[in-house]
């Protein structure tokens, strides 16, 4: 059994991510100028909830920062501060820091104060509170009482706030019975009429007082007093009782009753109310005082765009676990009150389901195959039943895959931070607009998209957009636009990063490629081919990439990351208008569309997204380049010919490749190749099986799958094959390496 506190802690950090998402949404709305009263409330509540939860886990850094952040937002909320553009931008930065702090707390690391302090300092400039010490003092209230049950020894001087410190010291340690603490042997309690209206009950209070072991209690009834104030209880103790412990019992009715202490051990007649008033006078609480109305919109106003259905869905999963795990629901009433009928499930369980469905798909394929090979006719009930079975299996698989799907929203929000940081670093004004944030895609894909997308966004800000003065010279708005969008297109997710910059400077790109020896000086390249040069390894280096977007990686790394996810990336660019990078991704990583080919008697799967076209080679098009290398002429350009049988070490090179079948792999970048196979068997979806865990990395192989006949087929990694190909020399060199 796991520790429930750890579970709550884990769920707290998940909630924090959702709250941060809501915070950024609200801030974005404020920054767009479309905020209303509720927007700042949403932002405030997000930070407030993070603070509240963080307090419970003693995440002091988070609590302290959230407190300052919240205070500033509260000032905006109450109208003390105007939400200027600068302030909203500062709030964005605060949100970034808060995200960092939360994640650091989650990972049990810390955030460098050098990052936090400047923001706090700036926040301090907006402080409307004249006494900054007050804030510090308040923070002390958020010390984790859950962990600190020792006697804090707070002086019981009757100040209101001290009650909490006092309560924190409970249960009291008997040995701490310090003589200077006020004690009493008689307690007189006289409720005021207001006490009953607050839902308090004298009987319960006296019962609690009874736990302090009084020796006697007397009730006096005064028919002349106002109704509700006619009774006075006098409680006596043989051993002196600490006043603060009595006060604790009456904490909630403080001001709603008369409470007085007597040190006299002997029974007293009664305590006059006037005398008692000296200790705890009923506060002047007019009964007609009605709670301040919440802002008119806040009560029933429909939730803002920031609380969209998807966000609510995400919010939902808590319900199943929080709903009455202990007590039985009364009369079955509770379930229908739950806002959204969702369950929270351990990811490993989902993954197991995904795997099992994968097995089902394989099993079903095996069954179909054996039926096809049997003597049963094609029109039997079995075949049509199998057809339905196939469809059902596909549907189940799809549904199961969608369990793992998440909206890309969290990813997009991270990108808005990248834009903020990147634009500040290069001194450009940039606005990020996002679209299709609720588009869902596999959780792992989202996680693995973060790095490539970050790089692309930085690139767009740094290289895509012109300098402000250049923009103005070109008659464009000074503020550059970066647009990030996601959408579903024919069973895939398409993510686009576009900018309204100057477009790719093709002559320059071409020159760089020539300078770096990536293309011959006289290469005749189309615009599209020039654009593809950006993806070539070695294209991006220090001279072409600034510190900001560079960080030592180029677009080739982005492309590899996307390809590893089973995705494709393409560029469109228009001079003076901007550039769009388009990423097309599978909905899930668990299955792959592949072409089953046969090489030297082995079945292999080539990812469909890597295949440009299939070729039948004729003697004319294949040219021998050297003793160990051939090229094939594909539409006027030479593409290296790789015999998969040789590359994989299955067989020796053929004498003649005329008539052979080849898959033209890669897109129009520098790493095209024609991969020779013996035959093409099938085109189908396959379930991906990892091979690294059980064996280790195999060069040129991405994973494995199980075909309909139960045999394992390797899924090829074309980019690895092509990049690491060394003609025919490679296979024999390695095959005996032990």
């Amino acid at each position, binding site marked *: 059994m796991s520790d429930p506190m750890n579970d709550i802690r884990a769920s*707290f950090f998940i909630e924090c991510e959702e709250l941060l998402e809501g915070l950024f949404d609200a801030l974005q709305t404020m920054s767009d100028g479309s905020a209303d009263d*509720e927007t700042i409330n949403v932002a405030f509540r997000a930070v407030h909830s993070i603070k509240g939860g963080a307090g419970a886990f003693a995440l002091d850094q988070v609590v302290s920062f959230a407190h300052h952040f919240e205070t500033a937002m509260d000032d905006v909320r109450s109208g003390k501060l105007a939400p200027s553009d600068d302030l909203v931008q500062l709030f964005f930065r605060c949100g970034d820091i808060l995200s960092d702090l939360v994640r650091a707390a989650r990972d049990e690391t810390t955030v460098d104060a050098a990052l936090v302090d400047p923001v706090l300092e700036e926040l301090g400039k907006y402080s409307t509170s004249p006494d900054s010490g007050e804030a510090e003092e308040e923070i002390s209230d958020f010390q984790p009482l859950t962990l600190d049950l020792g006697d804090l020894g707070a002086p019981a001087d009757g100040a209101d706030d001290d009650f909490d410190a006092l309560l924190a010291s409970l249960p009291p340690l008997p040995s701490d019975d310090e003589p200077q603490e006020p004690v009493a042997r008689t307690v007189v309690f006289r409720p005021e009429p207001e006490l009953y209206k607050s*839902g308090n009950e004298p009987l319960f209070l006296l019962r609690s007082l009874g736990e302090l072991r009084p020796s006697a209690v007397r009730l006096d009834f005064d028919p002349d007093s106002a109704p509700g104030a006619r009774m006075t209880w006098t409680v006596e103790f043989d051993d002196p009782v600490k006043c603060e412990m009595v006060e604790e019992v009456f904490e909630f009715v403080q001001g709603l009753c008369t409470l007085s202490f007597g040190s006299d051990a002997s029974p007293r007649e009664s305590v006059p109310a006037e005398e008692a008033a000296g200790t705890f006078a009923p506060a002047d609480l007019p009964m007609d005082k009605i709670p301040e109305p919440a802002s008119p919109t806040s009560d029933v106003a429909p939730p803002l765009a920031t609380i969209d259905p998807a966000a609510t869905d995400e919010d939902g999963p808590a319900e199943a676990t*929080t709903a009455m795990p202990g007590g039985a629901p009364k009369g079955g009433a509770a379930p229908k009150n739950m806002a959204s009928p969702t369950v929270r499930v351990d990811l490993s369980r989902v993954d197991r389901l995904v795997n099992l469905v994968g097995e089902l798909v394989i099993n079903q394929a095996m069954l179909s195959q054996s039926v096809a090979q049997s003597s049963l006719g094609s029109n039997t009930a079995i075949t049509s039943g199998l057809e339905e079975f196939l469809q059902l299996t596909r549907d189940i698989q799809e549904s199961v895959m969608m369990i793992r799907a998440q909206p890309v929203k969290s990813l997009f929000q991270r990108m808005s931070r990248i834009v903020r940081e990147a634009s500040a670093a290069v001194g450009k004004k940039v606005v990020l607009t996002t679209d299709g944030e609720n588009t869902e895609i596999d959780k792992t894909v989202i996680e693995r998209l973060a790095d490539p997308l970050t790089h692309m966004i930085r690139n767009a800000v740094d290289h895509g957009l012109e300098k402000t003065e250049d923009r103005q010279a070109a008659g464009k708005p000074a503020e550059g636009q970066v647009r990030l969008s996601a959408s579903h297109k024919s069973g895939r997710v398409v993510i686009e990063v576009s900018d309204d910059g100057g477009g790719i400077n093709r002559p320059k790109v071409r020159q760089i490629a020539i300078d770096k020896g990536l293309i011959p000086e006289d290469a005749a390249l189309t615009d599209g081919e020039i654009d593809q040069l950006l993806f070539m390894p070695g294209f991006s280096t220090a001279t072409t990439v600034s510190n900001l977007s560079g960080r030592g990686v180029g677009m080739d790394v982005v492309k590899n990351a996307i390809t590893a996810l089973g995705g494709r990336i393409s560029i469109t660019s228009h001079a003076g208008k901007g550039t769009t990078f388009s990423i097309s991704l599978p909905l899930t990583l668990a299955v792959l569309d592949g072409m089953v080919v046969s090489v030297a008697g082995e079945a292999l799967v080539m990812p469909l997204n890597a295949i440009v076209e299939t070729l039948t080679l004729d003697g004319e098009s294949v040219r021998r380049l050297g003793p160990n290398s051939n090229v094939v002429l594909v539409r006027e350009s030479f593409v290296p010919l790789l015999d998969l049988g040789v590359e994989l070490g299955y067989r020796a090179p053929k004498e003649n490749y005329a008539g052979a079948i080849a898959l033209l792999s890669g897109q129009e970048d520098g790493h095209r190749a024609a991969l020779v196979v013996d035959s093409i068997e099938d085109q189908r979806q396959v379930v991906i099986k990892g091979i690294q865990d059980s064996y280790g990395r195999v060069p040129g192989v991405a994973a494995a799958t199980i075909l309909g006949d139960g045999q394992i087929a390797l899924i090829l990694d074309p980019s690895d094959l092509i990049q690491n190909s060394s003609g025919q020399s490679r296979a024999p060199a390695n095959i005996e390496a032990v």
Partner: protein
Amino acid sequence: MSISVLAVDDSRTMRDMITLALKDEGFEIHLAEDGQHGLEVLEDIAPDVIITDINMPRLDGFGFIDAIRDRSQTKHTPILVLTTESSAELKARARDSGATGWIVKPFAQDKLIRALRMVAG
């Protein structure tokens, strides 16, 4: 007999914490995400005590308490306010609106239980 509690907080973490603190202590726990949701739950159950947060979407704690006190069935139901602020001002305001008592977040389990037993009997 167990004490039935309706806990209203928009933070899942807080709801989890309350549930954890109370579930093995003989309380029957009902949960709601905000004041509006809390009122809906109150249509179906009559808890012995209500715990509510203040800062919540749709219907905040003050409005929620108001509405509770307006209903004849819950006019006298004890209400504990969960608050991160421990200022006298806020406590006074909570009580003015009809709250029975308050719990300062983060709360200690024993203190919460004691407060619940105190107000609910």
